């Protein structure tokens, strides 16, 4: 039975271009306090454009209604649980939004003098220190703009380090359970990707790893806990295998929410890792960004970090651009500063002991879902669950229902879908991560919903296969969208 939601009226709304009418305005510029100039005479008429064809003209009222109406077509963390695995969709504290908009910070220009940037630099320095403490690493760059960008930075660091030892090597090992960004990144940095099979427990197979690790291997890209939500018990041994051959251990920190305050990658053999501040450290996902993907490293990689680096000189901060061994810059300026401010505010709110408590609650919530759903769904890997649990649709497939169908049906119950069909090593994967910011009641409603869906699969599979039924928008034809892509509005001709 659906308990969490019921239907209500939803406003319809055309596109901006369809409510536009010449002369409507939502702006007024201040009076110009200098003489106006004629564009054609100072730029040359060939450089001046005619009007921007098709561009909207809309009043202020219509503007705010437009976006407000559209917003109601979205699901969001503010409405409820997002059980997406490896996405760590947790509550986004609003104070983080407030402090990021503090006047002196929000309006800081990256080229303003260092003596007028000390506050921002201090924020970056403290965040570096706290993130190193959380990960057990020695140094960190905050420059990468997102997780995949951090991966690229990390693999570039490894490449530059190995080059300095005489040979950048040729291959990067990637477990078959890894996120798609891992192999894509390794390829971008000029490495051949070698996939390493997981064992029956969904973990690194030490024998396979040993066999795959030769003198041409630059690094292993590992996710820990892995994408099944299981801690890689043999991680220290795996690191030893790589290190014995002079290769490096890269960790994808997507699942760091399972570890903060409990275990530190720097203490289990990791040389380089990225974090996703928009996951573990609660900066808002914003419908797909912005993120931040800092990369933490062990001492031996420090000379290669992107420039500039923060440097303390006589009681004040300086930007040090003089790092001859650096990989260079991966982004203009210093990174997604506004996102970094939010992450620091989050860490300060929890504090060291609080971060650990949050982690433990995240583990408890995942455990609660596992226990609640284990009787109804196939659990292909029975190793202890950390922050996320992965079921398979094996039992439901007999009725012709797949993971994606049940995920869509879950939407009717008032939740976002869980992650489907990933990791690829699980047949019909149903991957769920609740995070620590879900109440007992929200989790009970979720477990209830999933059990109810399991029953529907047996009694009325078509109900599930055709879901969702209650959303404003039923299933959309994604195949048609890709066959003949329409990616911009055009006036009806």
């Amino acid at each position, binding site marked *: 039975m659906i308990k969490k939601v019921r239907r209500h009226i939803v406003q319809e709304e055309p*596109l901006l271009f369809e409510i536009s009418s010449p*002369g409507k305005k939502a*702006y007024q510029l201040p009076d*110009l*306090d*200098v003489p106006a100039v004629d564009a054609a005479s100072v730029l040359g008429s060939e450089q001046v454009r005619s009007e921007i064809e098709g*561009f*909207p*003209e809309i009043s202020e009222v219509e503007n*705010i209604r437009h*976006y407000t109406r559209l917003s109601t*077509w*979205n*699901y969001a963390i503010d409405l409820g649980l997002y059980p997406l695995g490896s996405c760590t969709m947790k509550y*986004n*504290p609003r104070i983080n939004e407030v402090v990021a908009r503090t006047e002196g910070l929000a*309006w*800081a*220009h990256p*080229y303003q*003098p260092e003596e007028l*940037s*000390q506050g921002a630099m*201090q924020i970056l320095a403290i965040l570096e220190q*706290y993130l190193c*403490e959380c990960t057990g690493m020695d140094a960190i760059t905050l420059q990468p*703009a997102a997780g*995949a960008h951090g*991966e690229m930075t990390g693999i570039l660091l490894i490449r530059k380090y190995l080059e300095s030892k005489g040979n950048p090597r040729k291959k990067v090992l990637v477990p078959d359970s890894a996120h*798609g960004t891992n*192999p*894509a990144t390794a*390829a971008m940095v*000029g490495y051949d990707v070698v996939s390493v099979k997981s064992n029956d427990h969904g973990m690194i197979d030490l024998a396979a790893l040993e066999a795959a690790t030769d003198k041409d291997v630059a690094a292993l890209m590992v996710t820990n806990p892995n994408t099944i939500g299981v801690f890689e018990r043999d991680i220290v041994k795996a690191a030893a295998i790589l290190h014995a051959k002079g290769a490096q251990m890269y960790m994808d920190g997507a699942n760091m929410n399972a570890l903060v305050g409990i275990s530190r990658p720097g203490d289990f053999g990791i040389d380089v890792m990225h974090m996703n501040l928009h996951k573990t450290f609660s900066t808002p*996902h914003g*419908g*797909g*960004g*912005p993120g931040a993907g800092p990369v933490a490293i062990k001492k031996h990689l420090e000379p290669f970090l992107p420039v500039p680096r923060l440097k303390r000189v006589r009681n004040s901060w300086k930007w040090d651009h003089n790092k001859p061994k650096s990989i260079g*810059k991966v*982004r*203009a*300026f210093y990174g997604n500063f506004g996102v970094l401010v939010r992450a620091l*505010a989050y*860490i300060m*709110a929890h*504090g060291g*002991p609080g971060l650990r408590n949050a982690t433990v609650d995240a*583990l*408890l919530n995942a*455990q609660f879902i596992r226990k609640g759903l284990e009787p109804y769904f196939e659990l292909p890997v029975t190793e202890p669950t950390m922050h996320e649990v992965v079921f398979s649709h094996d039992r439901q497939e007999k009725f012709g229902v797949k993971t994606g169908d049940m995920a869509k049906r879950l939407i009717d119950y008032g939740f976002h879908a869980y992650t489907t069909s*990933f990791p690829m090593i699980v047949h019909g994967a149903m991957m769920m991560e609740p995070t620590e*910011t879900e109440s007992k009641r929200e*989790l009970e409603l979720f477990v209830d919903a999933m059990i109810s869906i399991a029953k529907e699969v047996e009694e009325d599979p078509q109900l599930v296969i055709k879901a969702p039924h209650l959303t*404003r*928008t039923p*299933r959309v034809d994604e195949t048609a*969208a*890709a066959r003949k892509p329409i*990616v911009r509005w055009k006036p009806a001709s």
Partner: protein
Amino acid sequence: MRYLPKSESERQEMLASCGLTSLSELYNYLPAEVLLQRPLEIPAGKSEYDIVDYFKQQASQMANGYASFLGAGVYNHFRPVLCDVVVSRGEFLTSYTPYQAEISQGTLTTIFEFQTMVCQLTGMEVANASMYDGSTAVPEAAMMAIRITGRDSVLVAKTVHPEYRQVLQTYTLHQGIPVTEFGYDGETGQLDLVALEAAINEKTAAVIVQSPNFFGCLENVKQVAELVHSNGALLVVVFTEAAALGLIQPPTDADIVVGELQSFAISPSYGGPFAGIIATKEKFIRQIPGRLVGETLDANGNRAYCLTLATREQHIRREKATSNICTNQALVALMATVFMSVYGKQGLRELAEQNLAKAHYLAADLPARFKAPFFNEFVVRTGDPEALNKKLLKKKIIGGLPLGQFYPELADCMLLCATEMTKRKPMDELRKAVQA
């Protein structure tokens, strides 16, 4: 703790229902050697009041109350109130990437509008859902050109933002993509067409230029395009000052346009987060990196939107993807979208005209270094720019960007910028100081 929504008794009930007796059982099975045996050395959790106070303290050590003439890729433009109002709605702020189209039509529709307005602004036919920023969009454009042409090298004008060029070097270094820079005309400040003609050859996949360029000068894009196309290469046009597009000719002769939308309601925020764009011709759509939103129909036959052409992307293609890029900058792109719809067709032009007027007032009798027409930035000869800036700081004015750090031959010059937010009084003071 205020972010953890459970009472102690609820925790105990949940533990019991999991068949556990203590919270430590949730992790104490990890090998002892990997368990952290001490609390994290981070001060205990702080109140909202303390946190607000801390950031206010830090902000007080910044440039509050200063007039600024810095541009160089990051611009001070007014942020219409509606932009923050819209992005602060939890339904946008706290939603996930719109993979589940049925409950993400809000985000998907705004991205479709964003893609459309980026096309209208740039004169291109298709645009993606946004890039990390302008700087990282440049190498993505270069890699795209390489995929399209099957050629392997890239030429980039020295008048492209120096940090963008540095990022291009980092990205391309290990992909076997030779990147060669070509110079500029010391008189006009525009790229050196002769140098480009000498450097371009049958291996050149892309020629990357910026307009208005780093010196603020408008490039003659049409002329450059003819040369580039006659050599079978693609032209990539970069912009850092999106406000210029309200007034200047869009780079319709380009094959790929990349740029930065920071000017559109995105606060400077010490360099990020910003939103980059990449736009191109329809025929190259399958080579564009990153997320794309497309129009389709739902099961009731109504118009709907979804992410599309995912087969280009890393989560499907893995190591064969067009890029490893995963995130776009949805929320920041939404700010820019609201900015564009608030100003609209007329407003964007008026805004650009004000910028033009302010910058030309500022430049009037200053010793211009270059002759080419400019929008809202220009280079002036000032003698020792660092010394001048020190003097200006005493008047609570942040002067221009000294160019010696990026162009040793311009060590006696600074790059000045004026926008609609620059007031006449500090402009008069700056003019006086330069002429003194």
